[in-house]
């Protein structure tokens, strides 16, 4: 079961915003770095070409690019008197997933109120539904 991996100077767990910058800095300083990431590898050219990155249904409504709650989620309550329940679909915050982490969605732009940015979200009443994203790395 146990597989012994080659020794390295640094292991970075999670290759999101912080992990990416740390890995780069440490590698530049001459250390050997292995980064571990639970999500998929992502390339700007194939994952976020400008021709498809404006897909509102896929990214803003169905929450592609984010951590899928089926993978991992957490429970939530507002007060101690309430019963904490699992977050089944992301609402008040949107955890990133994959190489780049939340940096992939770091340029999320509020779509509502800006004509021509998001026809679906502009017609939803829920404030949370108004988050539209433009994935970029």
């Amino acid at each position, binding site marked *: 079961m146990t597989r012994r991996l080659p020794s390295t100077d640094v292991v970075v767990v999670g290759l999101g915003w912080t992990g990416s910058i740390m890995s780069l800095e440490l590698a530049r300083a001459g250390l050997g770095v292995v980064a571990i990431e639970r999500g998929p590898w992502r390339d700007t050219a194939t994952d976020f070409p400008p021709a498809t990155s404006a897909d*509102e249904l896929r990214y803003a409504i169905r929450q592609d690019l984010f951590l899928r*709650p089926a993978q*991992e989620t957490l429970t939530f309550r507002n007060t101690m008197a309430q019963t904490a*329940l*699992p977050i089944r679909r992301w609402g008040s915050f949107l955890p990133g997933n994959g190489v780049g982490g939340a940096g992939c969605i770091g340029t999320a732009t509020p779509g509502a109120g800006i004509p021509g940015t998001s026809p679906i979200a502009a017609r939803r009443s829920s404030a949370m539904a108004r988050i539209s994203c433009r994935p970029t790395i």
Partner: protein
Amino acid sequence: MQGRSTSRRQLLAATALVACLPVAAGARSIRGALPWSAGQAYPPPRLSAQGWLFFTEMEAAAVAAMANRLIPPDELGAGGAEAGCAVFIDRQLAGAFGTSAWLYMQGPFAEGTPQQGLQDEQPPNRRYREALAAIAAHCRENMSERLFHTLSSEEQDTLLKAMEAGTSGIAGLRDKPFFELLLQNVMEGYFADPAYGGNREMVGWKLVGFPGTRYDFREMLERLDQPYTDPPVGLYGRPDWTRAPR
């Protein structure tokens, strides 16, 4: 409790990282499938073959009729039926949205506060199947053996308004939540990219003047006082670009 989805612990095990981390006693290892593929990058969907992937003919007719009352055709633009909202919802229900495959769908299930968001145990595909059956039964028994799509527009509106208010009294139907799901999906179908089956010929975008997935508006910067007249562009371009001109 182990459900369909892969827990973080299993993921870590599957990626051969157990050696690096303390694993709780009793943890199980699952090898093989991760919830993504290496180098996974998938293009927008290509509309699959003709016909219905999820709906029966009767269900599809009912959903198209409902979409056509929520967004009725008028002098301004196409209605929900012509826009293909039923096709859109059919394809969505046949995919990851229909089964809630991306969502956390294990217990415990309880009535949450509004702030706790979605807590429904049933994924959308089951909600549609059961709701459409309940509506069909209601129309058969209480509206002289007819179906939703054979009711008059006024009768359809009355029923939809009652569902929206939660006062329809349709047996076996949580009418208000279903109406909200239906309305959301009809709007998505009307305004999402045509690649998903709705918004046919970009009728939704033309209606509201949405330019589509164009991403470079620099040439517009100098034309502040002029209306934007360029036709919309979808993820797969425009029909004129791929079809022979008539």
